[in-house]
């Protein structure tokens, strides 16, 4: 006999513990997230279309002047020149020659004002779509996407993956009320730790013990089913599925030619892993590139960093496009803020949230668009100002979600995004 819950969801009672990180002890009790959107038909449609999101996070604050909004030969322009792109009339920094050739598949927003110059607050704004408020906790974009885009109750792999250098399978705590099932799992190019069947167990023995576990669980659940027992059972079943698909996380399985094409740096390897994860149906993948917090020698460091970024990012966009995935995959290149137009005495640029840019593309984003405008030397937005709230709405709308929709959390409708903001309709096809 199946129990019925009054709220129809177990999200609100899920234990906040590690998921993959606890595989070692064999006692994973985390996860949950069995809730649904308030409009199941929408969720089913999204599942059919397999929308995905890739965020490339330029940690520390990429300079808009050395990337998407160059101002050459002005008092703020710095030494780099602007180059034409595949979109007539749209120029970006000469540091991005490969990406420039793909701008007809991407878009730029050059009119962001987030009214913030703090790393932590900026990171929260850009990845949560809201200002960070004491006592309030909202889910990360990745958690929202993982929950809203994944096929309900049928996912075999976690939906929210963060690619990091040291990624060992640990789960973060950035899903807020959506539950830890949708929090980010960090991977670094190798299968998560302890995700292989132990060497002392044969396949047969492993199957026997899992079969025994299921029988005992079923017996127990037949009379004492609770949200906790469901979560317990679910965690084991998803861990088993992940063990069967552990190679998905192993970037060394990709062809050597591709590994060379993406470049020898960690970021290239991480972009290739992102491709692999997206191809395997992961809903949300975030790759980071570090570090752009260039208070000193901004130009030398951007030369070094953006050069690394350009090659791997262009390879990734090209591959997503070639595979027909760009139509269903939103790509966003974001930071916590931009950098000051004013060049400081150390050839550096400082924190700046007043007039900066992001690059995005794929899914329903208008290819080749250049939205918004800053003034001649980039010190102010002069056309179609946007903030993090609008951007967050736009990301969700680009993958077919209605940002004004709600999640059913314990019977309460909770908005997917800040209700006070709205999407940038001009950017959406």
């Amino acid at each position, binding site marked *: 006999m199946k129990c019925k819950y009054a709220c129809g969801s177990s999200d609100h009672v899920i234990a906040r513990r590690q998921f993959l990180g606890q595989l070692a002890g064999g006692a994973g009790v985390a996860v949950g997230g069995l809730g649904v959107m308030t409009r199941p038909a929408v969720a089913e449609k999204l599942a059919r279309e397999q929308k995905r999101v890739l965020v490339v996070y330029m940690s520390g604050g990429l300079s808009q002047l050395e990337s998407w909004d160059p101002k050459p030969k002005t008092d703020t322009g710095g030494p780099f020149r602007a180059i034409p792109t595949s979109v007539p009339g749209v120029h970006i920094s000469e540091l991005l020659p490969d990406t420039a050739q793909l701008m007809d598949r991407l878009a730029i927003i050059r009119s962001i004002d987030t009214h913030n110059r703090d790393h932590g607050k900026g990171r929260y704004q850009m990845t949560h779509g809201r200002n960070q408020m004491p006592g309030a906790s909202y889910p990360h974009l990745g958690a929202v996407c993982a929950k809203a885009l994944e096929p309900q109750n049928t996912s075999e792999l976690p939906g929210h993956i963060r690619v990091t250098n040291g990624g060992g399978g640990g789960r973060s705590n950035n899903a807020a009320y959506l539950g830890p099932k949708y929090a980010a799992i960090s991977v670094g190019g190798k299968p998560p730790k302890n995700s292989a069947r132990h060497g002392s167990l044969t396949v047969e023995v492993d199957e026997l013990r899992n079969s025994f576990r299921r029988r005992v669980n079923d017996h127990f659940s037949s009379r004492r089913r609770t949200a906790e027992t469901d979560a317990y059972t679910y965690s084991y079943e998803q861990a088993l599925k992940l063990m069967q698909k552990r190679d998905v996380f192993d970037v060394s399985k990709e062809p050597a030619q591709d590994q060379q094409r993406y470049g020898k740096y960690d970021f290239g390897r991480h972009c290739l892993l992102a491709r692999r994860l997206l191809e395997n149906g992961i809903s949300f993948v975030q790759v980071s590139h570090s570090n752009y*917090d*260039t*208070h000193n020698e901004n130009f030398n460091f951007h030369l070094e960093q953006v050069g690394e970024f350009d090659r791997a990012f262009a390879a990734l966009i090209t591959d997503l496009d070639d595979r027909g995935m760009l139509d269903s995959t939103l790509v966003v290149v974001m930071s916590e803020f931009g950098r000051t137009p004013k060049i400081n*005495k150390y050839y550096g640029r400082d924190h700046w949230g007043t007039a900066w840019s992001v690059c995005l593309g794929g899914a329903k984003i208008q290819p080749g668009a250049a939205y918004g405008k800053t003034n001649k030397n980039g010190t102010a937005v002069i056309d179609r100002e946007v903030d993090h709230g609008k951007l967050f709405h736009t990301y969700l709308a680009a993958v077919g979600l209605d940002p004004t929709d709600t999640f059913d959390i314990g019977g309460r409708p909770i908005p997917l995004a800040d209700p006070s903001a709205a999407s940038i309709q001009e950017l959406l096809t």
Partner: protein
Amino acid sequence: MSRDKQEQKQPASGITADPQQTHVVHQWKHGSPLIACCFDPQGRYVFTSAEDATVQRWEIPSGKKVDFVGHDSWVRDIAFLPDGETAITVGSDDKMIFWPTAAEKPAPMKTVEAHKGWIRSISVSPDGTLLATGGNDTLVKLWNAADGKLVRELSGHGSNVYSTFFHPSGKFLLSGDLAGEVQQWDVATGKLLRTLDAKALHSYNGGQQVHYGGVRGISLSPDGKHLACCGLHKATNPLGAVNEPLVLLFDWESGKKIHSQVTSGVKGIGWHVAFLADGSLVCASGGSGGGYLLFFKTDSDKDFHKFKLPDTARDLDLHPDGLQLATVHYDRHVRISRMTPKES
């Protein structure tokens, strides 16, 4: 950066430089922060470059300024042919431009697309027949100074080339890179003769994932016995400008490092180094600790004098008279400091 003729600069007046007496005698302001500086061989002018992509000619001592407009980006280094009548500038626009030094309304005489990536340094051979440039394409290139034609490409650096320097014999060229390698080339054949280890001037910060430092300046002592390379060390926070200036002193003959010359209480980068006639050396430092002229002896690891400049320094050159130093600054000034007692 390069200032190849410094080791030959001897005070003609019989007055010797006294670093302890250093004081600013002139300061002239441009409309944009300055980047590089170089005296012409006749000592009539100091040339500077600025963040507005122009070059300035400042007449000494009047300070009369003439702008040279022709580059599309920042000019990183300036040099002159030995007679002083031709100035050559190189920049982040990959261009090498030849100018008439003293023209009333200067215009480029010749422009060469010299590198793919910033040109950070230019040097002129002692006989004035060859130019050497180094850039972000990791190449060093030799050019015919008369017509700007490429003579030879020297490939061997694994990172951006930051500095070049012709040995006064004209037989050797030195080039320093981001990774702290100083390569000595045979000018006649283009063969790499040896690599000096200046890796103390480079660091990789794993947390910030950045390479930092580089051989910012090279100079040779008047007696030819000591080679000095400058830059920075103790880069605990590269992105935050937390580092200290460093001069490495090598024995020219053996190529061995004999001193790591440091100063105390100064944060910044050693942007350029020059030998004075008595064999002591001066390094211009600039960064989060402000601007300084740091003076060292070749037999010591510590500075024997430091002179505080009004603003962070970004480059240095020694006047042909051996008594005056030019420095350029973020506050848009070029300053001429004199190493003699103040005139009453």
